[in-house]
């Protein structure tokens, strides 16, 4: 049991048929998340990170659909589930935290109603017990005076408090997996620090597996155990957070790190990655990153492009940056 990852995504492909051909916002993505582990998923907008999360919880908007690959939750395939079966699983086994806490709460129901509804639905307890659990959930996420605030409406809470309510909602049915999609992007730094600390504590104390989708490398460095870097729908690099961030093997990861201003640098110019991420309808042949890559060679332009499986399992790159290459980059 302990060996089975909580979430296992295998060769997932999500496709969107359009008039101009089929787009692949998620292309052959595989990763595992174990209990008590935080997997950070980073990438720029349009890299497919949210789409991966939505595919896992079965929230893909039509016409986007999973065309191949599988998603296993504690060893059980869930990508084939539909309707009622999927609804039972969501909330009970998987919790979701979205970016904007205001739009993910119902403004017409009190916070307590929303929590007890979820608890009653999934845990089969009495109304009274459900309310007690709701209070406990609010206390756990650090809402002061939870018992008196449980009958408040979402608009009566501040942004950070609302996000705590959303986290309480995701946690109240005691799921094994939490998918947090940009949970701190709409929040101020001081509140962001509180929410990140909360996620880490819950992950450690309750052994929940967390998929943390964000574009903020700083948040990843502080919170994640492992990190997956996505580019144009594909995994560019996957590995332990410290190794990936300090010794990036994929030129994209390395470029991403270098273009983030660091407190230790002065006014020096930032290293920039030329160009922008290609549109999904217009992906280059071979490695999707090669037009922006300073190390691109002929092989990078040829199909099939590199994947984690065909390369070293860490970076999807034919010519990963190694110890000697790193010197070259630094020079």
């Amino acid at each position, binding site marked *: 049991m302990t060996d089975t990852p909580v979430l296992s995504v295998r060769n997932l492909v999500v496709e969107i048929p359009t008039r101009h051909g089929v787009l692949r916002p998620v292309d052959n993505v595989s990763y595992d998340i174990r209990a008590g582990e935080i997997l950070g998923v980073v990438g*720029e*907008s349009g890299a497919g990170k949210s789409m991966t999360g939505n595919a896992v919880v079965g929230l893909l908007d039509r016409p986007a659909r999973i065309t191949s690959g599988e998603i296993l939750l504690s060893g059980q395939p869930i990508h084939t589930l539909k309707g009622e079966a999927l609804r039972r699983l969501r909330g009970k086994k998987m919790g979701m935290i979205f970016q904007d806490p205001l739009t993910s709460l119902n403004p017409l129901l009190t916070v307590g109603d929303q929590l007890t509804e979820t608890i009653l639905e999934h845990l089969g307890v009495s109304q009274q017990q459900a309310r007690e659990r709701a209070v406990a959930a609010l206390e756990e996420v650090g809402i002061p005076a939870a018992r008196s605030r449980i009958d408040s409406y979402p608009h009566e809470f*501040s942004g*950070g*408090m609302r996000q705590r309510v959303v986290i309480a909602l995701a946690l109240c049915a005691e799921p094994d997996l939490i998918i947090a999609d940009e949970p701190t992007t709409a929040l*101020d*730094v*001081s*509140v*962001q*620090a*509180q929410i*990140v*600390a909360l996620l*880490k504590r819950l992950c450690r104390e309750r052994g929940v597996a967390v998929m943390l989708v964000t*574009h*903020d*490398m*700083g*948040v990843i*460095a*502080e919170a994640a*155990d492992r990190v997956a870097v996505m580019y144009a729908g594909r995994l560019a690099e996957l590995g332990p*957070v*410290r190794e990936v*961030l300090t010794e990036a093997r994929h030129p994209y990861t390395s*470029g*991403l*790190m*270098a*273009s*983030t*201003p*660091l*407190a230790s*640098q002065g*006014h020096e*110019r*930032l*290293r*920039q*990655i*030329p160009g*922008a*991420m290609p549109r999904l309808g217009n992906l280059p042949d071979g490695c999707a990153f090669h037009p922006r890559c300073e190390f691109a060679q002929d092989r990078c332009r040829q199909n099939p492009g590199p994947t984690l499986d065909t390369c070293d399992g860490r970076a999807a790159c034919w010519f990963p940056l190694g110890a000697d290459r790193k010197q070259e980059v630094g020079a």
Partner: protein
Amino acid sequence: MSALIKVDHLTRIFDVSKPWLNRVIERLPKALLTAVSDVSFEIEENSVYALVGESGSGKSTIGKIVVGLVPPSKGAVEVEGVDLATETDAAKVEAVRADIQMIFQDPYASLNPRWRVRDIIAEPVAAKGGDTKGLAERLLEQVGLSAKDADKYPHEFSGGQRQRICIARALASGPKIIVCDEPTSALDVSVQAQVLNLMSDLREELGLTYLFISHDLTVVHHMADKIGVLYLGRLVEEAPRDTLFDDPKHPYTRMLFDAAPRMDAFGREVEPPKGEIPDAINPPTGCAFHPRCPLAVERCSRERPEMRQIGQTRVACHLAE
């Protein structure tokens, strides 16, 4: 070097009361939100002055007052010695106005989708009846786009390219000062680096002065010469960049620095800051930060701290030394 912009005891109060009939029926008092409270600072020519703070700290309001989009309630902003809010000599006002331009946060909302890029960029000059021939093409090349792009519409560009168009438009009237309100917050990191580098290059080439408004400490550290930290509409600390980052004196500045996620802090366990920014309609008495401050003493809740000069830093805290 002389001060190009002088902000003197600036205060801006917004009336956020309910409509008067509701107030009469429900017997509610007027609600006044103090967005900016007694802020003073100076910006020197060809420097980058950054304002940082969390949401509700009044940083965007100050930016808008400086360009003249919002009038101050009290205090004054002098640009090149001219107070735009009270100056009556139209010629002087005209001359100074042309010297200030603004770049906004959202490059998707700040370009008219029905206008061609050429018209968008030339507008600040065309509005005054100036000669716009070839202007858009020249500016597009200056900001790293192609002259051919002048015939396109904004939707044909990515976010980073649109922000370049906004910069080109801001440069059209040949300004000395550009107020940048979160210019890269809507952009991805790799594109953000391109835009920040462009802004640094333009500053050197054209001798520009920036008022740079941001919530992102790493970006501010990269760009600014001098930094002002705002909390609930008040300037709590101001110092040259290195002084501020090496030796923050105000407890709020320290809290901000500790809370900011760092790329080299793997699995860092920090004691997260307590509480949130209080309501600006009913700010705490005395020092606005005292309910969250780890060092607060009794005096802090009574007496609002004055700005004090300590070395190169100006700080508003009773206990700073």
